[in-house]
């Protein structure tokens, strides 16, 4: 399974979005906690500094420096700051040596933004009844600690959410992806024309099952229709063959048994050959259906292709010569392939027969057997008119005859039989350009399905 495929699954994306939303929620929650705590702590600090300042109110002027030293000693956490100044602002006692500038002497706590203090520290300054100036500050060490804790929590939980989210989404996507794979695998034979194959369904009844069910229902219908169409063709061929044969038998008996003139004899012969042509056509239709119906690999055996090629050359040599054509067979190597010998011979016979039929006198036909890496390849090239590119697929279908070929004799089913034989063997049959002429290649190895 490729990683890019995983990224693209809906489950993966959805899980990631859920993860992001969850992370945002966690951040908002922690932010809210911090904000509330900050407000609460500030209030606390304000009350502390007000209370501490108040403790100096009843103290006589002379005892103030001693009191400052006393409270400083009691401050173990080192969060309280005191400064006692004369009415003119000259330092008397305390660990604050200089009165912060611009501090209003109103006794109301405000934020202290001075170097050496944590952000959020609170302080007040006021003039004592005895005239001295008292400065009381409280450093925001608790608030800073809380901030650090919250920040750390955010970082850790964020990392955890991202990791868990990725892991979970990958894990969740794998299951559906595996099933999609199964569906993909199961659909390959269908694409290859094996219409009885169906997509797998589980008993989960999820959306994949729903889609597979719909696809299977459609396949049922396609198969039914196709069989209907096919059997109409076959039945017509079958139903017409018997009366046609009887008609032919009658014509034959008339010719043999009734005394007719030479001229009438000729007409009867013509009628007989027309009937024979019709019969050949119906026979070919039934033949295609018969090949299509066959079990794949039933009757398959090892076939020596080079012998087959030689036989074809020997069978068609005289006919080609009669048409003023040269028929060359080339077998590069001796090749064996698992196939139905009779059908393969019939297919080759049809291909060479076609080449003889359509190549003008003086031309040449070449039947070549070569060994490729994948397996043996048969190639038939001629110097005839070829098949236009837009007709190459169509000529392999039933009854299609090329534009130039309509006048030529034959059932018009030769190539369809070849195509049916190729289908049965899973060989690929390709019509190409031999410039000039037609090049037909039959790859004698199971064709890889590329979609």
């Amino acid at each position: 399974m490729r990683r890019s495929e995983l990224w693209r699954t809906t489950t993966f994306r959805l899980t990631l979005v859920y993860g992001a939303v969850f992370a945002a929620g966690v951040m908002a929650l922690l932010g809210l906690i911090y904000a509330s705590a900050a407000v609460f702590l500030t209030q606390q600090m304000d009350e502390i500094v007000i209370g501490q300042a108040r403790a100096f109110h009843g103290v006589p002027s002379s005892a103030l420096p001693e009191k400052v030293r006393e409270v400083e000693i009691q401050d173990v956490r080192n969060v309280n700051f005191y400064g006692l100044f004369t009415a003119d602002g000259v330092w008397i006692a305390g660990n604050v040596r200089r009165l912060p500038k611009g501090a209003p002497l109103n006794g109301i706590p405000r934020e202290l933004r001075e170097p050496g203090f944590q952000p959020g520290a609170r302080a007040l300054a006021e003039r004592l009844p005895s005239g001295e100036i008292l400065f009381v500050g409280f450093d925001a060490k608790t608030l800073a600690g809380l901030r650090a804790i919250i920040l750390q929590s955010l970082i850790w939980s964020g990392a955890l959410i991202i990791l868990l989210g990725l892991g979970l989404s990958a894990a969740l996507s794998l299951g559906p992806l595996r099933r999609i794979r199964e569906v993909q695998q199961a659909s390959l034979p269908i694409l290859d024309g094996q219409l009885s194959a169906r997509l797998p369904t589980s008993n989960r009844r999820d959306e994949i099952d729903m889609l597979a069910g719909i696809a299977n229902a459609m396949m049922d219908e396609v198969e039914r229709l196709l069989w209907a169409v096919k059997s109409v063709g076959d039945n017509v061929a079958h139903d017409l063959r018997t009366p046609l044969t009887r008609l032919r038998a009658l014509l034959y008996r008339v010719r043999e048994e009734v005394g007719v003139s030479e001229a009438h004899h000729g007409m009867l012969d013509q009628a007989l050959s027309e009937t024979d042509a019709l019969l050949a056509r119906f026979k070919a239709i039934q033949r295609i259906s018969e090949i299509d119906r066959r079990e794949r690999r039933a009757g398959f055996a090892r076939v020596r292709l080079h012998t087959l090629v030689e036989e074809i050359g020997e069978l068609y040599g005289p006919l080609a010569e009669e048409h003023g054509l040269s028929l060359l067979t080339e077998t590069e190597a001796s090749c064996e392939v698992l196939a139905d010998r009779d059908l393969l011979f019939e297919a080759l016979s049809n291909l060479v027969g076609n080449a003889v039929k359509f190549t003008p006198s003086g031309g040449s036909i070449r039947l070549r057997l070569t060994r490729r890496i994948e397996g043996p390849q048969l190639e038939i090239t001629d110097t005839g008119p070829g098949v236009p590119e837009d007709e190459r697929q169509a000529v392999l279908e039933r009854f299609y005859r090329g534009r130039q070929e309509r006048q030529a004799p034959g059932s018009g089913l030769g190539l369809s039989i070849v195509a049916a034989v190729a289908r049965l063997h899973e060989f690929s049959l390709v019509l190409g350009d031999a410039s000039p002429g037609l090049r037909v290649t039959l790859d004698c190895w199971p064709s890889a399905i590329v979609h």
Partner: protein
Amino acid sequence: MPRILAIEDDETTAQEIVAELSRRGFDVEWAADGRNGLVRAVSGDFDAVTLDRMLPHVDGLTIVSVMRNTGINVPVLMISALTEVDERVRGLRAGGDDYLTKPFASEEMAARLEVLLRRARIQARETVLRVQDLELDLVTREVRRGGREIALMPTEFKLLEFLMRNSGAVLTRTMIFEAIWGYHFDPGTNLIDVHLSRLRRKVDPPGSEPLIKTIRGSGYALNASF
């Protein structure tokens, strides 16, 4: 006059068989179902049998097996609507001598039956076949006409051997194709004609009496009297 038994349940087909074979001078009897056919076939009163593959009561394969098991070795031409290759193989394996698929041309059926009858009559294992002044030596693979040697290609030799073994009988193109090349499909008429005309050029040179005859609408015959 050879006696033929036609076992066939389809009346029209049976009439065709009877008419064609009678016209050729055979004495034909018709059995319309399997049971009746089997009883008459094993009676030993007939020289050859045409046998439908699918029959009511007793099927064609059974009839031919019973015939062979009871020692009735007259030629049997199986006739069947089943065209599959397997069916042909089964028919021949059960003891049939030839297999013809329905629908068929009457002369094809008659030609095949005549060849079967001829084959049954010739018992001797000759090494030299002779038809008039034409000689074919199966051992040395030499062919002579009136003492003059004829050089034949392997296929031409096989073709001539087949014609000579069945001299006097009409051989259809399908029969020739099946016998010489061993395949069972319709190769088109021209293909076989060309091979025959090549052989004829060698066997019947200008000035000699033609031995290979084309029977219009049917096929070929060697040394035919008609």
